Each structure stands twice: as structure tokens, then as C-alpha cells.
């Protein structure tokens, strides 16, 4: 008699098992948020967090995977916002063309992507800190140009009453729909960035970041990969910019002023520039500080206008102690915990 010994099939973990439980909990919490959170929290805090997080995510993609710290992302977002205002409807009917939404949204994203690609083509001629300087210079040129140009960008005032189209009979500027809109866009861009970072293009880009000369010798075009990275990140920044303009219902030169441009860098760095989740954490911290620090400052008897000081000091402290942002701090903490509990390294088990 022969026995057939059946070995247990090596079970492939399902998607549900592969993702740690805490992620599922966060996802559930985010989806269920409108059940218990107030409209202010949904619209102002989380809507804004997701939007800023997306724009900072585009910077994170460039900086973390491409090694290029670009300050142009907010400007690309503002460019998309301006395109939406110019091509769609706004409070300035003399300039706005009033196209339908299915036309002006793709065109706006396309224009912003072209703009970002052109800037990228200029910026990749330089390296490291030069890239920061050049993108900062271009960003401020955009700011001053939009402030002076009245024919197309309507100068200092910009465009007001730029609102999302009423699709499916829903007013997308209501708190709950807007929350879900931004959540969906943020989640989509997050997963796209994760996917692209593991795709052949993303891997080649990381290779270019680590050793451009070797990648060039292997036959990869270093410049093309870098410029393409700018294009891809511009698309994400453009979506974020459009959402930002819809949230504020206006776009003006101040949307991409120099403080705003630098804020995006602050957010990405504070959150952690190595992983795609970092920018969202940074954005949440930034938004919470931005919204609540005036109250806290007032409680301590200081003027509420000093929130910038708080943000600047916080940024300084984080950069000073942990170049990888909050995520870096967390990882340091985990490593120390692991070392402490590891009996081989002198810790108690």
C-alpha cells in the first residue's frame, strides 16, 4: 500500500494578509471618517492635508527616487489651477473660456505636465543644490509673472469662484463629497507612486539616483529618465493643484508664492522624503499646526500670528535632528527598541 503524502501547499498570502493590520485600520478609519468628524475637520483639515500631501508626494517622488529636490511642484500645481480657471469657468468671464469639464481638466493637467517637463529639462542640466536654486528661481519668476500679467493670468487678483463642476448632481464643494474626492485622488496618487517606484522605470530612476554614470554605461538615458520623472510628478502635482484651487475656490499669484513653494518642501522633509507615506504625514502635521497653532499660541499669551515661527522652528528642529523627517525619527526609535530587546546586543529580552 502506498501512501501518498500530501505536502501542504505553500500558501500564498492573500492581499489581505500581506498588508499589516494597522494599514487596514487606517484605511477603514479614513473611509468611515465622515460618520463622526465635523465638516470643518473633513473639508479644512483632511481635504487640505490630502491636497498638500499630493503636491508634496510629487516632490517626494523626485527627491526620494530621483535624487532631485525640486521647488517647482507647487508652481506646477498652481499652473494647473490657473489653466482650470482660464479654460473653465470663473468669476472673470472676460478671460475664462467656459469649456466643459471633461475637456478642461485633462487639458489643464496636460499643460501643467508640459510646463513641469520644460522646467525639468532645464533643471536636469544641473545637480544637487543647483537644482534647488534653479527651480526656486523659476518658481519665483512664475510668481512675479502671474502678478504682472493681466491679459492671461489676471494679475494680482487672479481668479475667484473657480468651483468644481456639478457631476452626478453632487456639489463637490460640500464637505463630505470633497473629502471623498480628495481621499480618492490622494490614495490613487499614492498607489501610483508606489507602483511606479517598483516598475522598471522607477527602478531605473533609482539606479540613476544612486549612480548615474553606471546607469549611463548600461545604456539607460540618464537625462530622459530624469525628465520623465519630472513629467510624472508634474501630473500628480497638477491634480493636487486643481483640487487646491477648487477648495479655495480661487487661484492667485499667492497660490504659488515663495512661502507656499517652500512650505511644500517643508512638508515633504518633515514627513520624510524616503517613503511615499511621508508627505501625507508631513502634510497632516503642517495643517494641524497651521490651523491650531494660533489658538495654542493665544492660550500661552502670545500673538496668534506667530504660527510661522512655530512651523519654522519645528522644521529646523526636525531637519537638525533627523534628516529623514518624522518617519526617520520613528525608525530610529524602533531600531533602538529592537537593540534594547535583543539579548545578543546586551539588551534584556
Amino acid at each position: 500500500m502506498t501512501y501518498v503524502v500530501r505536502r501542504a501547499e505553500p500558501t500564498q498570502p492573500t492581499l489581505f494578509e500581506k498588508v499589516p493590520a494597522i494599514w487596514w485600520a487606517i484605511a477603514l478609519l479614513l473611509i468611515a471618517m465622515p460618520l463622526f468628524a465635523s465638516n470643518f475637520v473633513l473639508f479644512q483639515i483632511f481635504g487640505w492635508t490630502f491636497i498638500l500631501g499630493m503636491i508634496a508626494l510629487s516632490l517626494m517622488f523626485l527627491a526620494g527616487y530621483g535624487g532631485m529636490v525640486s521647488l517647482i511642484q507647487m508652481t506646477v500645481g498652481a499652473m494647473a489651477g490657473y489653466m482650470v480657471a482660464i479654460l473653465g469657468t470663473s468669476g472673470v468671464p472676460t478671460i475664462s473660456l467656459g469649456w466643459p469639464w471633461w475637456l478642461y481638466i485633462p487639458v489643464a493637467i496636460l499643460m501643467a505636465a508640459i510646463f513641469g517637463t520644460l522646467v525639468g529639462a532645464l533643471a536636469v542640466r544641473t545637480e544637487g543644490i543647483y537644482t534647488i536654486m534653479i527651480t526656486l528661481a523659476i518658481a519665483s519668476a512664475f510668481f512675479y509673472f502671474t502678478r504682472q500679467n493681466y491679459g492671461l493670468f489676471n494679475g494680482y487678483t487672479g481668479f475667484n469662484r473657480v468651483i468644481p463642476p456639478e457631476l452626478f448632481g453632487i456639489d463637490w464643494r460640500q464637505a463630505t463629497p470633497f473629502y471623498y474626492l480628495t481621499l480618492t485622488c490622494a490614495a490613487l496618487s499614492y498607489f501610483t507612486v508606489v507602483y511606479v517606484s517598483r516598475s522598471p522605470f522607477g527602478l531605473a530612476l533609482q539606479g540613476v539616483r544612486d549612480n548615474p554614470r553606471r546607469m549611463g554605461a548600461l545604456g539607460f538615458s540618464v537625462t530622459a529618465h530624469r525628465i520623465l520623472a519630472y513629467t510624472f510628478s508634474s501630473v500628480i502635482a497638477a491634480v493636487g493643484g486643481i483640487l487646491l484651487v477648487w477648495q479655495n475656490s480661487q487661484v492667485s499669484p499667492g497660490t504659488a508664492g515663495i512661502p507656499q513653494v517652500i512650505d511644500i518642501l517643508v512638508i515633504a522633509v518633515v514627513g520624510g522624503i524616503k517613503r511615499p507615506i511621508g508627505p501625507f504625514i508631513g502634510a497632516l502635521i503642517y495643517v494641524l499646526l497651521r490651523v491650531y497653532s494660533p489658538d495654542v499660541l493665544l492660550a500661552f499669551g502670545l500673538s496668534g500670528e506667530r504660527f510661522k515661527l512655530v512651523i519654522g522652528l519645528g522644521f529646523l528642529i526636525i531637519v537638525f535632528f533627523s534628516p529623514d523627517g518624522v518617519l526617520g525619527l520613528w525608525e530610529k526609535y524602533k531600531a533602538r527598541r529592537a537593540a534594547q530587546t535583543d539579548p545578543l546586543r546586551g539588551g534584556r529580552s
Partner: protein
Amino acid sequence: MQSFYKRHPVWSIILLFLIAGFVWLIATPWSPGLEQVLGRKRIFLNAVLSGITLGALYFLVASGFTLIFGLMRNVNLAHGSLYLLGGYIGYEVANVTGYWLLAFPVVFVLVGALGLVLQHQVFRRMEGEELRQTLVTIGISVVLADIMLWIWGGQSYQVLSPDWLSGPMTLPLVTALRSNGDPVYLTYPQVRIVILVAAIIIGIAMWLVLNRSRLGMLIRAGVDDREMLAASGVRIQYVFLAVFAFGAGMAGMAGIVGGTFQSLTPGEDTRFLLASLVVVIVGGMGSIPGAAIGALIIGLAEQLGLVYAPTYSVVFTFLIMAAVLAFRPQGLLGAGR
């Protein structure tokens, strides 16, 4: 000069013609046909002079920036804040004591001391981490900007120039001919001319120090190869401290100058940071003559642009920068490294 002519004979001749044409435009009275195309000569001359004096101011700000960058590879994005801080302190000093000139040494020492502290306490701890240094300077500029807004508020200040500098002076430049053939000479604010002359003197002095003194030799050696200089026994940290303090002090003094012939408002720090960025990108990183040429080009482009194409004057500056980047990424006088 000689070598430049030998390497680029065609470009030299084109440049020579351009400069000659420019001088001709400035020196001779304009014919009616030319006035029809370019407008009144007085306006043109005023724009050119404003451009040159603005360029002098940009040079004062950018020279410290470019020195710091060239030696320490540190993009000091707080440079604009140092400029504004110097302007505010200078305003207070000039206001309290009543001596405009006294403000310069006081500001130089104070802002220079701040530079010393920054270099010694902050940047030395993260040497070689360029990105982190840059981020820290951004943080410092945000904090400084808000502290200055706290102390001095949002209104604009103007440093008053002393009596012996105020008022116009007549320059030997003909703007037009009267009907009886007498030439009309250009009058221009005296304080701007004095500042221009001072900037030129400072520029020449810096060039002399850099090229003829031992300290300058150390700095140039440091720009070329920091490690080798340190290995040959020079205490490079002291050189770093000196250069950073000097650069910061220059930015502070430029703040007084800027506060005298323009004004001091909270947005000025980023404006001058941007100006120094563009000047340094155009002129070439770490080169003092490059900063001078870049400042002159940017100042002229800005002012001439303001007169002849008001909407697009910013774009001119930007286009110049883009063109330089596209054809000569290391800057006009930057070393090809």
C-alpha cells in the same frame, strides 16, 4: 582678456560692437528718428543708470552669497534674511544716532557676528551634507523672517540718507540739445552715484584681497580643493568662519544701501535672495567678477525691461537665466568643473 580674444575672436568682435554701440547710445545726443523708436533719451539714460546702480546693490548682496557658496558649497538661502535684518538694524542705528555712515560698521559687525554663530554652531555640524545645510538655511530664513515681522511689523521703512548726499547731481551726459545748441545734462540722485562708486571700490578691494593677499590665496585654494588645503595644514575652519562672517556682513550692509534707495518691507528678503540666486547663476558660482557681471546684466535687464516692456520685465531676467543655463550651465565666468 587676451586669451578670451584668442579663443573666441568672433564673439569678442560682436561683444566689442555691442559695447561700442551702447557707449555711442549713451554719449551722443539722439537724433529725432532714434527718439521716435526708443523714446526720450532722458528716460533711456535714467533706466540705464538705475540699472547700473541696482546692479551695484545686487553685487553687494550677491558677492557674499557667491563667496560662501564657492568656498563652503553652502547655498545660504537665509542670505536674503541677513540682507533685510541688516537693513532694519541700520535703520534703527541711523534713526537713533543720526549718523548714516555709523550704521555701516555697526551692521557689518552685528550681522557678521550672526554669520559667525550660524557657521560655527549650525553649518559646521553638518559639513558636506549640502542638502541638509540648504534645508536648515530655509528653516532659518522662515524663522528670521517671522521674527523680523514681529519686531518691525509689516510697514515699509526707508533709511534717510544724510543731507550731504541728498539732492541731485549733474552728470556729464548729454540728454538732449536745446534749440540754441546748448547741451542739456542729465541730473541724477547723488546718493545713488555715491553708492555705485562705493560698490565699485568694494568690488575692486575684494578682487585685490582675493588675488593679492595671503588670505585671498587661502580662499581661492579652498574654492579649488578644500581637502587638499586642509591637508596642507591650514586651519580651514577659521577661513570658513571669516568668509561666512564677511559674506553675512556684506549682505547686512547691502541692506542699508537697499533701505536707502529703495525701502525695507517684509517681502524684500525673498526678492533679494532670488536676485542673488539669478545673479550667481548667470555670473558663475563662486566668482566675484562673475557676480559683478551678472549683477550688472540683471540690474540693466530689470530696469530697461521696466521702461520698455513693463509687464515682462521679470521674464527678461528669467530668460537671461534660462539662456545662460542652456548654453553655459556653469555661468558666464564660472569655472568649467
